[in-house]
């Protein structure tokens, strides 16, 4: 623990300092710079819509899953992802650290970079991530040089352990995967944003652009969304809506937000009357 990484993530602090000049707002992850803070999931919709969704959503990172190859279809998802987009393979299907490590290594062997989203589930009803196994897998993969983005249930101690294990970011869930319920874990995510010196990427459960916007206003470094877009009437248009919402939330966060007037009056006796 004592040697854990405590570097400043520039994107969380640079804008806040009055003494410093405003710098360009880049999202830095695993040594790469991104202009977009929207991570697009590619599940549950037609491959042919992916390119349009990426373009309209301005996404620069897209998640993928690994499966047994199909010989019946000649189309492959990689044919549809525009060049320059960073691939973020997940470890879905893994039920423990060992399986996640195996899947991550296989994904890496595909030759599309070393980013990996660790997701380990042994619950098929809610699909909640197993935090304990996730920490174990993160440690192994980070040591092997992966840029590890662990999907987790928001818990401060686990987030600290993930940081010590070498995670490049932490991906707390907002609500159960695919539930479109929004920021059900808002308070816990806020704690992670306040306390962890890594980008916090809100993942899972974000159902509407307004919820993505709220996560960004809170100080999340990025938002990942899939089902909300996949189930929309018009997939590329919804991706565009998310792009705008994420940008709006980021801008609001960077400007420091305005004041909210407190309701109700204040007590009459001054607390500071004793000062000389």
């Amino acid at each position, binding site marked *: 623990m004592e040697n854990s990484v405590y570097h400043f993530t520039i994107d969380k602090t640079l804008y806040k300092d009055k003494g410093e000049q405003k710098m360009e707002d880049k999202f830095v992850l695993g040594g790469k710079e991104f202009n977009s803070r929207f991570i697009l999931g590619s599940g549950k919709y037609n491959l042919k819509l992916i390119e349009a969704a990426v373009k309209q959503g301005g996404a620069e990172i897209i998640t993928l899953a690994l499966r047994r190859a199909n010989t019946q279809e000649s189309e492959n998802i990689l044919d549809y992802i525009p060049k320059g987009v960073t691939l973020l393979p997940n470890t879905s299907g893994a039920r423990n650290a060992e399986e996640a490590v195996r899947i991550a290594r296989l994904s890496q062997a595909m030759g599309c970079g070393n980013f990996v989203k660790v997701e380990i589930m042994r619950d098929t009803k809610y699909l909640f991530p197993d935090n304990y196994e996730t920490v174990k897998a993160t440690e192994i993969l980070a040591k092997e040089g992966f840029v590890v983005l662990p999907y987790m249930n928001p818990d401060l101690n686990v987030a600290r352990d993930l940081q010590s294990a070498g995670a490049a970011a932490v991906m707390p869930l907002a609500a159960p995967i695919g539930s479109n319920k929004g920021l059900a874990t808002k308070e816990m995510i806020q704690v992670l944003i306040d306390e962890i010196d890594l980008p916090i990427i809100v993942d899972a459960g974000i159902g509407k652009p307004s919820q993505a916007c709220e996560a960004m206003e809170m100080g999340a470094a990025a938002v990942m969304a899939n089902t909300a877009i996949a189930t929309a009437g018009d997939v590329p248009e919804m991706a565009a809506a998310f792009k705008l919402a994420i940008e709006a939330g980021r801008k609001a966060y960077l400007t420091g937000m305005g004041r909210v007037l407190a309701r109700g009056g204040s007590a009459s006796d001054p607390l500071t009357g004793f*000062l000389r």
Partner: protein
Amino acid sequence: MNEENQVYFIDSDKLPPEALERKHRLEQDPSFRTNHMEYMDGMQVIESDIKDKVLQAMDAFDYDSYTAMDVERALSHETCSIEDFKALLSPAAAPFLERMARKAEEITKNHFGNTVYIFTPLYIANYCQNYCIYCGFNCYNNIRRKKLTMEEIEHEMQVIAKTGMEEILILTGESRTYSDVTYIGEAVKIARKYFKNIGIEIYPVNVEEYKYLHECGVDYVTVFQETYNTDKYETLHLMGHKRVWPYRFDAQERALMGGMRGAGFSALLGLDDFRKDALATALHVYYINRKYPHAELSLSCPRLRPIVNNDKINPRDVGEKELCQVLCAYRLFLPFAGITVSSRESATFRNGITKICATKVSAGVSTGIGDHEEKYEGKEDADVGDEQFEINDNRSFASMYEDMEKGGLQPVLNDYLYV
């Protein structure tokens, strides 16, 4: 040497001429002094980037650039960011003092309820190797020096424990020769018999030594950085191991690495620009908390009092209002941190500030050596060591307890088990 410091330099006619000459040379000739940023032999260097982060932030802090709008915004936020904290420390926040106090009161209540901790300090030796120009214990000062024997320590502790006090802070002057680590460790072992919670405020030591002291029974370690401005620090701490600024800065971290449960931090406000020192102190706590989230951290807030009726009031003087502003800002930024208010402050101030944000006060305080029986029970004894500074609030344990209760607070003497 700037004018305001001249008041500190007091020569004794009892000093041998060579010593006097050396003292003057230290005061007048910076090249005669050692490099204050360089570790001395035997001082452990630990891996830590907290110093750099704190110094950088302090350096960049331009408090005059904050406006009432920034303060308003800071007050409306649920969590106080570093930038919000800076706004709250700025002169622009002065008109918001009452609102800051109300918010601080609410946060303090959320975290600490109505409780206020009471403890007492016990000075066991006043020998010192350092020449710090503002301190009564400095090695050139002609004071009665004393180091209590183990029998005297036990006697003093019995006198204090009889009042009902359960937490003690053991202090020494900073002399490794006269009050070595084993001597302090033995004193702690005695304290263990009479008290449930033991702090030490001694010269900074290495990790292994903190570990030893923790095994003897120490719960927490307090080290005052005095000022975080290294250049200013250099002009105040002219000689001795205290002169080494970075070794002192890392003391709390070494203590936590040695297994201590908690650590205390402080600048002596008014030595330098108090707003910058307050920022640095709080950031020191903030970064230590992020790195050692299990540690119990606390802040103290001693200040050099402004000279009363001085027509050239220094804008950097720390009056009661400024001190209150700093403490409220500390509370908003570090809701979890303990805040201790020294007996250098008046009873009125301490009664008021404990209702807002302070969580710990000392009582039955004597900064002299071996004079508790005299002070507590009126017995005269000529063989006592001189005091470090004069105190303002000299309430006994019993009357402090009573006053805190009267103010609607619940005095707590101790709240945990030693592990």
